[in-house]
């Protein structure tokens, strides 16, 4: 038996090829590909095709109006020297660096609170989740109103405790912090993910830790955090990508018909600049190179996150 097992476990290249070939003789295979047909079509037309086209466009000066020329790496050369690109990239990075930790901490605190509420948990969970049901355009409008420097409620409340609130929506230094605060209103989704993870932590681990004399903080740090680390990791990645591609709130609040100069510099997020280059200036070639830069940045950041998190993320049993 021992002599047969190794050959059965390791199919050589020939057997694998044969497996592939024989697979296509099965009727099941063709039926399966039939079910996948919508995805094959969609993937070709709306993902793979456009990806290739966009990569090709990024080496041209295509702009709808004028004749198109192959410009080589000119676009990439230009974007390195475009001060607006670095400005926009910085804006998006700063926004992400502020909003991701704030959202993770807020969502975790809310989830921990909900865990202890008991019977009323459903009611409060709904309350904390509702902002997530608000369209981003509406969130941006509420931001403009609530954070209004002279008459907004935020500064009114700050005034009660003696703080002279800044002009959130017009002072370039305060535009991003204001947007971050308003965005963190919609942490409901992240909170629900954490809540599910927290409920999945086996109770006996806490009991064992308590018996070993671990206090509340130790139990949180050494039991809760490792046990929910996959959820933390997942939201960390998703929120980072969402932060880097943030568009709607910044665009609604600061661009469009009412585009001004001062504060819009501070709210010129990368996706906003990319959108304006594409559909307001119709610099399709240049915008394509901007899009690929964004994609590469996201890939690199995600890759780093995955590598670094490997040490901290604890997958129970599986993997």
């Amino acid at each position: 038996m021992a002599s047969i097992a190794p050959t059965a476990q390791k199919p050589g290249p020939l057997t694998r090829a044969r497996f592939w070939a024989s697979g296509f003789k099965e009727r099941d295979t063709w039926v399966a590909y039939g079910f996948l047909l919508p995805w094959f079509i969609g993937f070709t037309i709306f993902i793979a095709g456009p990806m290739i086209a966009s990569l090709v466009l990024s080496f041209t000066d295509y702009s709808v109006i004028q004749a198109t020329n192959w410009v080589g790496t000119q676009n990439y050369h230009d974007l390195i020297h475009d001060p607006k690109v670095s400005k926009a990239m910085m804006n998006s990075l700063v926004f992400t660096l502020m909003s991701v930790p704030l959202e993770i901490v807020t969502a975790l605190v809310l989830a921990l609170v909900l865990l202890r509420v008991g019977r009323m948990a459903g009611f409060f969970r709904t309350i904390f989740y509702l902002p997530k049901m608000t369209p981003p355009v509406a969130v941006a409008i509420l931001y403009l109103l609530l954070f209004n420097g002279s008459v907004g409620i935020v500064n009114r409340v700050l005034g009660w405790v003696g703080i002279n609130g800044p002009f959130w929506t017009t002072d370039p230094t305060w535009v991003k912090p204001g947007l971050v605060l308003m965005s963190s209103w919609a942490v409901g989704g992240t909170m629900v993910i954490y809540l599910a993870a927290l409920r999945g932590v086996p109770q006996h681990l806490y009991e064992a830790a308590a018996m070993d004399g671990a206090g509340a903080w130790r139990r949180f740090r050494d039991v809760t955090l490792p046990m929910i680390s996959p959820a933390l990791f997942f939201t960390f990645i998703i929120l980072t990508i969402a932060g880097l591609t943030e568009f709607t709130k910044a665009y609604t609040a600061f661009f469009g018909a009412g585009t001004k100069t001062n504060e819009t510099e501070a709210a010129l997020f990368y996706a906003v600049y990319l959108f304006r280059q594409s559909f307001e200036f119709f610099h399709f070639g240049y915008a394509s190179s901007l899009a690929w830069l964004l994609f590469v940045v996201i890939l690199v950041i995600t890759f780093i996150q995955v590598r670094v998190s490997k040490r901290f993320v604890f997958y129970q049993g599986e993997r």
Partner: protein
Amino acid sequence: MSQLEVLQSGGSAAMPVPPVARAPRRWRSVGTVKAALFAVVLVGFSILFVYPFIWAISASLKPQAEVFDNRVIPKHWAFHNYADVFRIPDAPMLTWIWNSVWVSTLGALAVTFSSALIAFGFAYFRFPGRNLLFGVLLSTMMLPQEVTMIPTYLIWKHLGLINHGGQYPLWVPNLFGSAFYVFLQRQFFLGIPRDYFEAARMDGDNYWTMFWRIAVPLAKPALIVTFIFEIQAKWFDLMTPLIYLRDTALFTLPLGLKTILDSFGTSGGGQGDWQLIVAATVIAVIPMLAIFAVFSKYFLDGIAAGGRKG
């Protein structure tokens, strides 16, 4: 149940009970101070999360001069704001709402059905290349839409469907499934015992009837999650209509809302008719809150399921 019974059961619940016995188990060992502090935190957070809604509803019922007075109950009621919103020239609110409703519904139906087909293909069959293809499918979730948006725009432009009454660019891509939903539904299909399908096969079912009569009904929760998530996504989307629609009559609600903000907000050179902007905002928010009220369980379970295995 008679009214009397309701009253009786209500009465018995309100009967004085020793507070210690009624308190939730976790609190029993915790001091009163801690419990009070906890209640303050809970109420504080609740106010923080609910207040913007209250502010908006109240501001939408105030005359223009009082929008920012930060009273919860308006000093002067201005219910006519809601009538005025529908009479703004060049801002056909009703048309926008209708456009959003039908684009959302059509798009959600399309993506639910197509994703179910694809998910079933990945879940039920074993075929060469399955894991590779599924990996490719999952990795497309990483792709920001910015990378594909220009060539996609050029396709629609070539077809002459930019600014077209059919709104095709907004919902046709949904006919081809969406990675996240395929992932979600596949998990669900995998949970259906294989015996069910084998039994159906014995009874003479073919692959299509197995999908339609067994898999789909059993995966209903996942399909509902897909449907409502996509309704929400379409209701939220500003960028796509911004790219493809020019005539105000074709706008969906988010773009309409942005238009109202631009023409009445002070930054767009308007008069600062914030009461109208806020009323329009409330109108855009309420359908989503209503959907959540009906489907809250599905929203919460769907998000938790999406996060569990990411």
